[in-house]
């Protein structure tokens, strides 16, 4: 089958599934007698979407959350990659740090978030850190696994070629660890959105988490739905970006496999 036909089929199925879902949602809300403040109809959510798009508030709050997510992701990634490198390379460092890292993962982020607001203030920094904290662990684990999956024979080869330390990192370790690392990034990218929203839930006056709180406070459930769907789109967009990066950066793997 030609690729464009395959793509067209995929898009067709996506549209069918979306329309089917909307019809089911409409039928459920129309015939179940559930009030709008509990479960709004699709048309009500659509109307609310148009309102917040027209007054610019949805774009504003989305950009705020996006900024927190991107900065949180950047911070979480950098810290996880650096820590992961040292943990992968040194058993001693791993033994010393692992208990702390594993223990830190058992602390719910919602319990930490209020403390971050107290320590760092109610501004953007506490949201960035919440996002970074939630991104950190999956990326860290995948960085370690990725680096440890490099076969010893390839290190021997690099040594025989008298490769420098930098060359070993850029020519061997990064390309070899990249597939596993990007797997961690896929998870991290979507988690970053959750982290930022948790931060906004605790204390914020802007962002999509704040918009959800406003919707709940005003019994405007349609607004809550608009904010939640925007968050889903944001997470899907980030996930898609990582998949695109994967396809782009790992194209050599496919070529070798052919």
């Amino acid at each position: 089958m030609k690729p464009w036909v395959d793509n067209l089929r995929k898009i067709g199925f996506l549209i069918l599934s979306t329309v089917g879902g909307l019809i089911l949602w409409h039928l459920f809300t129309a015939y179940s007698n559930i009030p709008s403040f509990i479960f709004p109809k699709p048309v009500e959510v659509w109307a609310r979407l148009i309102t917040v798009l027209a007054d610019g508030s949805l774009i504003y709050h989305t950009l705020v959350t996006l900024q927190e997510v991107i900065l949180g992701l950047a911070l979480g990634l950098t810290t996880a990659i650096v820590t992961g490198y040292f943990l992968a390379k040194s058993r001693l460092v791993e033994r010393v740090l692992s208990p702390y890292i594993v223990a830190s993962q058992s602390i719910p982020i919602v319990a930490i978030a209020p403390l971050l607001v107290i320590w760092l203030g109610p501004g953007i920094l506490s949201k960035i850190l919440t996002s970074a904290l939630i991104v950190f662990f999956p990326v860290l684990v995948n960085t370690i696994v990725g680096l440890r999956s490099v076969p010893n024979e390839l290190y021997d080869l690099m040594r025989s070629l008298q490769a420098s330390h930098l060359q070993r990192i850029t020519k061997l370790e990064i390309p070899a660890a990249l597939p596993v690392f990007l797997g961690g990034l896929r998870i991290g990218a979507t988690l970053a959105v959750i982290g930022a929203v948790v931060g906004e839930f605790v204390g914020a006056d802007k962002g999509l988490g704040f918009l959800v709180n406003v919707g709940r406070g005003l019994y405007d459930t349609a607004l809550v739905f608009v904010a939640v769907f925007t968050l889903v789109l944001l997470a899907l967009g980030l996930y898609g970006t990582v998949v695109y990066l994967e396809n782009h950066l790992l194209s050599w793997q496919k070529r070798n496999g052919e």
Partner: protein
Amino acid sequence: MKGTKKLILILLAVMLVSSCTGVDGGEQTPEELIVIRLPMGYIPNVQYAPFYAGMEEGFFADEGLAIEFDYSYETDGVALVGANEIQFSLVSGEQVPIARAEGLPIVYVLAWYGQYPVAVIAKSEQNLNSPQDMAGKSIGLPGLFGANYVGLRALMGYAGLEEKDLTLESVGFNQVEVLAADTAEVIVGYVANEPVQLAAQGYDLDVLLVSDYLDLVSNGLITNETTLAENPDLVRRMVSATLKSIQFAVENPEQAYQHCFKYVEGLEDANQEVQTQVLESSLALYQTDPYGYSKPQAWENMMEVLLDMGLMKAEINLTEAYTNEFSQ
């Protein structure tokens, strides 16, 4: 095989004995009592002492009721009552006009607090002597929603201040820590809670009560139009038991406090002096005249503030939003 049979027989015997003796660890509610799930809007706290006392002293049981305390979000309680999933909830006053404007058929039937419980608080060096003194200061509040925000905006309106005249910081429910750490110069909180906690830590404070400047409808008990129409007797019994409970707590604060230990986990380890003060401050709030009565002017004022804030887009018929019929 023999061992397995033995084990099964023992288990069956244990189950049989358990079912006969009711060894299930649960407390049995007499069948005639109607269990009322009551969202309280906050965590277990001594400020709810009248309800705890009412349960222990039998005021609710006398009316054929048993309260199942629910500490979920206030807005969830309002939505559930609005959808007639539950019959009652304890909410702050501003929620009623906001919810009714969105089509939730809730009705306020009893004033739990006689005055709006929100205050702005600052360390005394900030010289917060009047609402006008908030100008130019950073104000920490849980968020731009709920009773704290409404109370602050009411004070700002009184002082002729707009949001651009001060810096609002959404700090979550961390007002005590934020003021102690000087992250905000002024905080907004409940008069029975944050000022008491801060004073106990040795801070010298200035406290401005919203109710000293504007009469706003305060926390109260809500039901819905369906319950009012189909089961007014249930409403009457619930209000009657609550009023007796409030009166008991006001007249017997020490006994009411003792009843809290059963319901507020960790109370025995908390600072007893602070907790007693929280109850004392709350007792002052309960005392409406007469108990449970909400003033029509307070409703008018509240609607005006909410319209001014943009939290309501149009006026509502306030006579449908509340009734003093059951509390008189």
